[in-house]
């Protein structure tokens, strides 16, 4: 079984969850080697960019993975999402330059999500896809607004931008490919149960 782990902000929690579920996950030392593929037990762990996890699972090149809803939506990924996690939650926000300018252009790393958001509100605005530092676009007047993930809100404050709306609540999910679910039902159900239990155990501990 091949499982895709996101290399970004969800990395530690994702690995911890699989470990808690009894899987033999790569160690920190392993990760320090900058290798991206590890075989441990009957699982092949692959470490890919956050945005690529849904791609590997959708194409059947990974059987399962952990991905944020932001990436799942942005890729219109059809994989099953049997478990939703409590860690790593954040919000996708519509943010404007100060002074609430009229919404004419939106910079974002999520053009598909942005398009759906704007269409759903009958807002006519151009979307400017960017690769990074999205908030800068509003600061430098490339666009009037940006749509981006907000965790702490620090970036927004530093740039004196203004949050205007919540576009989506984002949470990480366990995703499982459709074909593998059907053809390897037993092993996949076992994976889901173990992850579900690990999540609930963790929840138990956190709740006083």
């Amino acid at each position, binding site marked *: 079984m091949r499982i895709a782990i996101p290399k970004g902000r969800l990395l530690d929690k994702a690995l911890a969850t699989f470990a808690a579920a009894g899987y033999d996950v790569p160690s920190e030392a392993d990760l320090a080697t900058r290798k991206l593929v590890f075989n441990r037990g009957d699982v092949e762990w692959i470490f890919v960019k956050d945005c690529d996890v849904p*791609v590997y699972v959708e194409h*059947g090149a990974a059987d399962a993975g952990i991905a944020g809803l932001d990436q799942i939506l942005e890729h219109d990924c*059809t994989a099953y*999402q049997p478990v939703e996690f409590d860690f790593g939650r954040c919000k996708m926000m519509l943010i404007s330059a100060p002074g609430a300018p009229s919404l004419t252009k939106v910079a974002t790393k999520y053009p598909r999500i942005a398009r759906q958001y704007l269409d759903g509100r009958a807002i006519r605005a151009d979307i400017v896809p960017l690769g990074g530092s999205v908030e800068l676009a509003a600061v430098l007047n490339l666009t009037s607004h940006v749509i981006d993930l907000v965790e702490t809100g620090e970036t927004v404050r530093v740039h004196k931008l203004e949050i205007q709306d919540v576009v989506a609540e984002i949470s990480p999910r366990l995703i499982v490919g459709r074909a593998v679910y059907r053809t390897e039902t037993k092993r996949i159900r076992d994976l889901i149960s173990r992850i579900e239990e690990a999540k609930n155990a963790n929840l138990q501990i956190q709740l006083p």
Partner: protein
Amino acid sequence: MANKFRYPTGVRPLLVEEAARRKRIEARFAARLESDGFDEVFLPIIDYVEPYVQLRRGAAAKQSYRFIDREGELVAIRSDFTPMVARALAPTIAEGDLPLRIFYRGDVIRVEATRLGANREMFQIGAEIIGDPTVGADVEILRLAADLARAAGATPVIVYNDVSIANALGDDARQALVSKRIARDGSLPELAVKILDGSATLNDVREFAPLAADRLDAIARGAGSECLLQLDDVDAAAAYYTGIHFRVYDADTRKRIAEGGRYDDLYARFGTSAAAIGFTFTIDESTEALNGAGAPLTTEVE
């Protein structure tokens, strides 16, 4: 146009070797179907959109090439066979002719990939039995699908279920089954939870959907060992299925190679009441990756 070699989305020529490969598979399918008493029909490559409006959800409608003809009607290039068979045959069916065994083949063309990178270029061969509502027809069709899959070089795994069960459980349970997400807060019927975690049996089902349970029981007894009943195989499938619904996978590549089921209400939409069950195989160029047997790999992400 970007360049002189390109073909429109969804089509390309098959030159000598590819054509030969395609013909070998076609011939194997046709021979088996004809020897089983199935008669071929030829369906048009274009048809009006209107007769099918209620059978296709918005997104699917947009997957086909569509255009306005000289009379102002909306026309689509064929992207799906089953409803076309019903529209073509329904007006000609006489009670006494039933049951009919029919097969068909041809290209279907989709202008949009269903999903990330999925292919849009497909050749399909399908068969159906019209006018036989019995479990015997269900079993015959399942066995035929398995044999054809083998004839194409695949190791078939056929996953089946009855669409009426999820419908009987109510919308919330159905939604949970579609998403495979279990709400463990007691809001779902216990059966749904059991179905999801794999512990449900047909006896559990019988209480909610006795007819479906009995039917599945009978099918299980008749169908081959490659057929697996999966009660959690609930999906937003084509709107017209009314009973058993199944998909054929190749065990080695895990790709789906065929889909089928029972659609006893479909013919009535086109003017003649008749039970029907059938399946469609989808063949694409990955066929060429296999020797000899030439196992067809599907083009659609499930």
